């Protein structure tokens, strides 16, 4: 039925098993994108064969940590277990993926928590900005909000969850990944259990990038703004996304109250050029939010309320500085070294290796090793960076702001730059 199993053997006593399904808020029906969050929260709360109590006790018996994460295009369920319990972990995971049980009273409980989460977003301005940027900039699946707004969450039922799962959890969209396990053992357990999934591959989720403007005056002493541009290509453009990763390390940035230290990015461009020189900037960070076929790349920041115009002006200036070749070789080498180090340090961790296998198999159909990615990073040149940022700046900007938005400039004045 198209389900795939990928493993990497290691010589460590810890193993990590994960199921990655290509279903997220982008695949949910337009007014019901909160089902993705519901499916995430109810992932380990009962299946057709196991009550929630039995599931949690079995997890404890094998020493498993259960995690679930829903994003716009993928759902990840993972168990971290000692290596000797991999077979049991695979069985539990396959059960949770293939036969979830959604009971209305559990859904009602979770809907209440979703509504509280929607309220809590107001306290997390950068999270709010990233959510709003996606909703505004895209038309199509990617514009469905991942954090469901309150009124939308109130209308979700167990039937919606079941319909979402039935329509989207098909064999071709499921990958079972394991780090630190023997391939034959995992396939032996998983093959029979995943056979029951219906056939079907991932549909193309249509989208259009439009850019746009969104302001939410939530008051306060600060203004928070996000300026992003489209990176056409997304993860599937491997060379482009490698350049975006290096760009992210190059620009860096962060909060002005950072204690600093090695690896914190204190020598990145945004720290040296902006945060060290402008005391009225509280936060200035480069971000890149990539999906399978597209992405938003830009800068998000916070400043004192009266300086909204200057904040957005600084963002444009920094992006243009890179586009016009302002990067020095020293900065580029530092960024490349930092990116390579980040790859190797992350691949030390079993859960991350498992996630890497799963997500790469879903996105690319194959897995490229860390060494190959490091080699790609080493090939990035200054010309690549300049060309990439110039291409970014040609797209329509996405300007989202919250806090005290009275001084944020008009959208057309930003679009003209």
């Amino acid at each position, binding site marked *: 039925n198209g389900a795939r199993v990928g493993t990497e053997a290691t010589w460590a006593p810890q193993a990590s098993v994960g199921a990655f399904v290509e279903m997220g808020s982008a695949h949910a029906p337009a007014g019901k994108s909160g089902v993705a969050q519901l499916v995430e929260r109810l992932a380990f709360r009962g299946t057709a064969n196991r009550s929630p109590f*039995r599931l949690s006790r079995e997890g404890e018996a094998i020493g498993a940590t259960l995690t679930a994460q829903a994003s716009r295009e993928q759902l990840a369920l993972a168990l971290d277990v000692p290596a000797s319990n991999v077979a049991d972990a695979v069985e539990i995971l396959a059960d949770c993926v293939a036969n979830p049980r959604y009971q*209305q*009273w559990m859904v009602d409980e979770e809907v209440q928590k979703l509504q509280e989460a929607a309220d809590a977003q107001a306290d997390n301005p950068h999270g709010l900005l990233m959510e709003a940027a996606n909703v505004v900039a895209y038309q199509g699946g990617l514009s469905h909000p991942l954090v469901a707004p309150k009124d939308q969450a109130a209308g979700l039922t167990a039937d919606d969850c079941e319909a979402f799962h039935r329509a989207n959890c098909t064999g071709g969209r499921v990958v079972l990944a394991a780090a630190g396990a023997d391939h034959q053992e995992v396939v032996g357990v998983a093959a029979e259990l995943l056979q029951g999934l219906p056939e079907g591959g991932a549909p193309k989720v249509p989208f259009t990038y439009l850019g746009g403007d969104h302001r939410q005056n939530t008051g306060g002493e600060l203004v928070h703004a996000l300026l992003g541009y489209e990176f056409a290509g997304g993860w599937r453009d491997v060379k482009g996304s490698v350049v975006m990763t290096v760009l992210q390390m190059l620009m860096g940035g962060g909060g002005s109250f950072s204690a600093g230290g090695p690896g914190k990015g204190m020598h990145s461009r945004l720290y040296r050029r902006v945060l060290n020189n402008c005391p009225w900037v509280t936060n200035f960070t480069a971000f890149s939010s990539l999906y399978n076929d597209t992405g938003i790349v830009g800068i998000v920041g916070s400043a004192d309320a009266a300086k909204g115009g200057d904040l957005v002006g600084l963002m444009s200036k920094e992006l243009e500085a890179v586009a016009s070749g302002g990067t020095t070789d020293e900065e580029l080498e530092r960024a490349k070294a930092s990116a390579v180090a980040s790859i190797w340090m992350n691949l030390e961790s079993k859960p991350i290796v498992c996630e890497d296998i799963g997500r790469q198999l879903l996105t690319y159909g194959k897995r490229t090793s860390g060494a190959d990615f490091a080699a790609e990073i080493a090939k990035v040149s200054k010309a690549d960076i300049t060309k990439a940022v110039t291409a970014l700046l040609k797209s329509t900007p996405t300007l989202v702001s919250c806090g005290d938005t009275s001084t944020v400039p008009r959208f057309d004045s930003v679009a003209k730059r």
Partner: protein
Amino acid sequence: CRTRTGGMAGRGFLSKLVEPFYARMALWYQAEVAVELKKFGLRYDDLLDPLQNLDVEEALKRLPQEEVDLRNQRIKRAMDHSMKHTELSAEMKALQTPYDFYIDPVVKEIEAENMERAKLGTSKPYARTIP
């Protein structure tokens, strides 16, 4: 009306002899109880008392709100008729469904969950006991 319990029928030779008698008597008894319930406009499951049985209280929390509201309205109507010594009208009696067991499956599920916990020696999630 539906039979509700697996019951004692069919466990031994004597039981098998008495089975058909029990079946007929059960049908007669259920019909009599239905007549009484229809007088007040109650369902059998409305008689389950959450104050007596904490599993029923939990089941009522799991039911959708409309079911709980309908149950409360039926109980209020029955209390009113009881106080006034009146009955439902004949047309209303014809519409009654006394053996629509809407709480019973949920209570059975809760009892199964409690059994599972008891087997492993865990306590229930709600620890209150009736003194």
